[in-house]
């Protein structure tokens, strides 16, 4: 008990202060009335919290991004609609590349002015994996990039060639999203199974 005052300071230092996030929510005016009143009252007697609040104000002001809403010419986005099977006999819909192995029923989609054919085959280079062969039709200028996604994660990116062909190799079985994008347009093929 010799050093009682130091021990009390060590034990009690800022014991009545609101937490840092409560102080932050107070600044952002997100606290319910009763808590906001309590924090305001505390601030009248606590120079430490006043200092932390001032630092927060300065910090947020310095970082404040110019996040005002802006309207602009939007990217045209199409959610591709699956077409019934049996249309794959049409000329021009067969993928330009063909690999040996099991061929599943092609998936055909329509997206605005575009048509898309996806053919899923065994990947001859990797046993147990699949290859996705795609053909995009209807684009005057085929400057699309193709991205393969799963659960919010981008797995592969490739380019669509001048004839509209693209390939994803070594794809494990699963459900994927395909996004074809260019500067002014995007085609989303959602939840197709490989």
């Amino acid at each position, binding site marked *: *008990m*010799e*050093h*009682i*005052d*130091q*021990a*009390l*300071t*060590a*034990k*009690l*230092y*800022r*014991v*009545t202060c609101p*937490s*840092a*996030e409560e*102080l*932050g*929510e107070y*600044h*952002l005016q*997100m606290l319910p009335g009763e808590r906001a009143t309590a924090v305001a009252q505390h601030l009248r*007697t*606590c*120079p*430490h919290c006043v200092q*932390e609040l001032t*630092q*927060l104000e300065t*910090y*947020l002001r*310095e*970082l*404040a*991004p110019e*996040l*005002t*809403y*802006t*309207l*602009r010419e*939007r990217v045209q*986005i199409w*959610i591709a609609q699956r077409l019934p099977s049996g249309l794959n006999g049409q000329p021009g819909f067969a993928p330009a590349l063909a690999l040996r192995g099991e061929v599943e029923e092609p998936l055909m989609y329509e997206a605005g002015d575009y048509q898309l054919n996806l053919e899923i085959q065994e990947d001859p280079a990797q046993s147990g994996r699949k290859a996705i062969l795609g053909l995009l039709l209807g684009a005057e200028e085929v400057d699309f990039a193709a*991205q393969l*996604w*799963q*659960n*919010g*994660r*981008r797995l592969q990116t490739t380019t669509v060639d001048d004839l509209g062909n693209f390939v994803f190799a070594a794809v494990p079985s699963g459900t994927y*999203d395909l*996004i074809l*994008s260019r500067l002014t347009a*995007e085609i*989303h093929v*959602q939840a197709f199974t490989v």
Partner: protein
Amino acid sequence: MFPHPGYPKPSDFCERTTLTQDLLQTLTLSGLRHRCAQESDRFFNRLAYDPAFCYELFRRAILERDEQAWTAVYSQYQRLVTHWVERNATFPTSGEEAQFFMNRAFEKMWLGITGEKFGTFEDLSSILRYLQMCVHSVMVDFVRQKEHKLKLEAVEELTHHPPARGTAVEDHIATNMARKELWEWLQNQIKDDKEQTVVYGLFVLALKPREVLDLYPHTFTDIKEIYRAKENLLARLRRSEELKEFLDDA
């Protein structure tokens, strides 16, 4: 007739807004993540952008407690949050990696935002502002813990009495409970406003007597009164077995 030729007409706005709303409902997480990344790139290149996709990503993550959406939020914003950490005045002297604070800030947001709170976010800007506040808040926590640790170490040096060690979380919870119990106990030992102010000013705020006098000029007439109130209080407390137990538990 609208004042500026380039300004959108209300009908344009409604049509576009509805279009976005329909699209937001339809997009998969992958599509949303992709659009959020594209629009963020536009924003950082100072081009016009649409914040609706990133807002929707946060909405699914927080309101629907969708962990995959939260992972997507983390991936999308980790670089920005790390940058905010590095801009914080506390960071250069912290001795910690920026990633440590970045992860704590995301955790704080994930744990701190309820559906009710999310309802107060009008737009992406207010969500990001909250995330910035979380960054500052983890830095403040860090400083507070450091200050508290220094005060405990000072007592340890004087008493040669190292405190018992549990896990960091156990220590933190137990310490907080013990601190609050001691504070409540002390409230019952205090005789008057002067003693109350002395306890609060000297021990809770860790101010010097002169600073206590400056902060409470109407409670004390001079500094001697502060010393007197403190000595009277400590003389009583020294005889208390309960206080000894509180302090020995340190």
